[in-house]
């Protein structure tokens, strides 16, 4: 009989044959709860993890290199594909860093609209987090409950920019559109109802014995660990460190709105769950303050900087110079001054940073993305050791990692 030439996997089960009965399993990239394309190489002693090695790269698209061959406006839609759960946060981070690079001041109305979109994205991302996390722990009903509210946020964003997943609704220099008629009413309706829905989820989970058993004292990240592994966002605040870039280095109008930075001192998964819930409430609070702010602003939504930003459509169609400028900006792209900039924003997952090195060309010389999930994935190799296999799933779900932004 013909001998089948089988491919040997890289992590062949050698250790299993040994006397200590350790088993190496590939948790992912096809595992149902690998959250995208995570591959965790777990060394199991029974069900206890004795070693965990996160292996990433299954979704790598080379975004940083792509950026070097794209003009700035071209790259903006690519950032959608990073953290696809909250696309606007990425668009915004990139747009803000380019604006910082060329020293652009964005009109106030655009700022308010951007903040509205950012907070809606934060809510949508946190709802999605709760949905998948609860599903991983086995509470399947929460999954469908939160998806309805998430649908409302997506509907609002769709009403604004037409897209539901990859928004590209923030542009360098402002926002492309004003809010459509009736949008504010829809937003009002949504944010008035959301706290009740959050209370519903908490009613199902907060005092649920099994939910508490599964989350309390599971996935403990000490403050030292969180700092040394470069955690940010809820992972850092879940370890008792009150660090929110919206408060520390306010961008847009975050210094004008009132909101609290929730902190959990328990350092475990349950604390981070409560934290996410509280953050959604804070987002609602911010959105409530933004609505009157929007009504006070003047209708301008794009910055006036003919060198970098195309003039409004009406002007392009009527004025020769604007048309020429627009033609150059579209075909060649804007040329930011020589210099480099690093801008960090608080995305729903944590510190999302863009580093741009410009040599005065229409293409960035180097663009570096700092994605929060990347650091949280690295942390897994330390916090998973000693936990059970069932907890591995809970911890991965709790860390809120999204592979679009890890692999970029």
């Amino acid at each position, binding site marked *: 009989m013909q001998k089948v030439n089988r491919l040997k996997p890289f992590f062949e089960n050698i250790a299993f044959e040994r006397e200590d009965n350790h088993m190496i399993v590939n948790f992912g990239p096809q595992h*149902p709860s690998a959250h995208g394309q995570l591959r965790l190489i777990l060394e*199991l002693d029974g069900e206890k993890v004795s070693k965990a090695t996160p292996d990433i790269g299954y979704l790598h698209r080379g975004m940083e290199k792509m950026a070097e061959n794209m003009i700035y406006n071209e790259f903006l839609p690519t950032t959608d594909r990073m953290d696809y759960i909250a696309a606007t946060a990425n668009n915004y981070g990139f747009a803000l860093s380019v604006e910082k690079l060329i020293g652009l001041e964005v009109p106030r109305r655009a700022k308010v609209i951007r903040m509205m979109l950012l907070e809606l994205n934060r809510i949508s991302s946190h709802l999605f987090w709760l949905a998948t996390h609860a599903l991983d722990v*086995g*509470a399947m009903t929460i999954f*469908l409950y939160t998806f309805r509210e998430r649908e409302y946020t997506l509907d609002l964003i769709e009403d604004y920019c037409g897209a539901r997943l990859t928004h590209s609704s923030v542009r360098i220099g402002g926002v492309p559109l004003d809010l459509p008629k009736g949008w504010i009413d829809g937003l009002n309706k949504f944010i008035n109802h959301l706290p009740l829905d959050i209370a519903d989820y908490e009613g199902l*989970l907060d005092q649920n014995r099994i939910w508490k058993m*599964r989350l309390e004292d599971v996935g403990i990240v000490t403050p030292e660990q969180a700092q040394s592994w470069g955690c940010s966002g809820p992972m850092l605040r879940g370890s008792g460190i009150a660090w929110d870039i919206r408060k520390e280095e306010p961008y847009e109008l975050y210094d004008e709105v009132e909101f609290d930075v929730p902190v959990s001192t328990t350092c475990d998964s349950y604390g981070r769950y409560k934290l996410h819930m509280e953050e959604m409430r804070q987002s609602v609070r911010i959105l409530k303050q933004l609505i009157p702010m929007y009504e006070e602003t003047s209708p301008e939504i794009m910055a006036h900087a003919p060198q970098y930003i195309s003039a409004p459509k009406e002007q392009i169609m009527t004025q020769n110079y604007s048309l020429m400028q627009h033609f150059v900006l579209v075909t060649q792209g804007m040329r930011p001054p020589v210099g480099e900039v690093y801008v960090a924003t608080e995305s729903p997952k944590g510190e999302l940073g863009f580093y741009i090195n410009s040599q005065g060309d229409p293409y960035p010389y180097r663009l570096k993305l700092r994605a929060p999930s990347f650091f949280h994935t690295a942390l897994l190799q330390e916090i998973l050791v000693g936990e059970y296999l069932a907890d591995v*799933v809970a911890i991965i779900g709790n860390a809120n990692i999204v592979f679009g932004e890890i692999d970029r």
Partner: protein
Amino acid sequence: MFETAVLVETLVKAVIVVAVVAGMAGFATFIERKVLAFMQRRLGPMNVGPYGLLQLAADGIKLFTKEDIVPQNAVKPIFMIAPVIAATTAFVAMAAVPYFPEFTLFGYVIHPIISDINVALLYVMGVASVGIYGPLLAGMSSANKWSLLGAARAVIQMLSFEVVTGLSVLAPIMMIGSLSLIDINDYQVGGITHWLIWKQPLAFILFAMAGFMETNRAPFDTIEFEAEVVAGYATEYSGMRWGLFFIGEYANMITISVLVSILFMGGYNSLWFIPGAVMMLIKVSFWVFLFLWVRAAWPHIRPDQLMWVCWKVLMPLAVVNILITGFVLI
């Protein structure tokens, strides 16, 4: 002559029980989807037939026509026989379970029980625990690490709940003095107040929890919980072999529902104006619904927590319950 009649009667009953319960098990999958759907703000299957009723048939056709894959490195005979064990034991357990009160049909008195053996309860529990060999052998023969993990979980789960099931029914048995399910049923004649659930509330709760474990239902569905061990022991199965596991699981669910109803909730005794057969249907339906309700409402538990619950909480409680019952009886 007499023996032939008994043989024919038993055979007919066996065929009817298998056919009806297999049909009910299939229907239970439909009910499960619908109940879960309505609890989760959606509609469930709606496209195949009126209200998706024909989804059952569609699933059956799908399972039967799917390719039956046996992995290259699997231990083939064991791999192929494991689902049969799971399904068979689920049905064999029903041989000693009475479903309805006896009734007369064409002049014959019919006992809706295949075989009234005097150790019925012991028999049902024994056969049901043999059923764990299905997942165990399937997981160990699949040549898949996730299956192996599922099999390991099946063993620890069995080791945990078997003790609780056994000890929890001991107390009621001490009161009744018989293991025959018909005797247990007859003990509870005379309305709701005579149900054993009032005399043995603790045993009832323990037995119900063990029932959830035995049928691998949430929150104790550790052995095939997809977020952790992919599909557990059934990872490598496809087509009807996987379907047999499925039917076995749902048949088990129905058996446990019947068992709880008979043991603690008055069985097929008539209540007020409701005849016994209808009472039985109501109780079984309620228990099946409860299984689904719990699945919709609760997250699921970790295997080590399951062992903790069984050995450190439920088992001591069961022993205490037996002691108290003993003292009261003396």
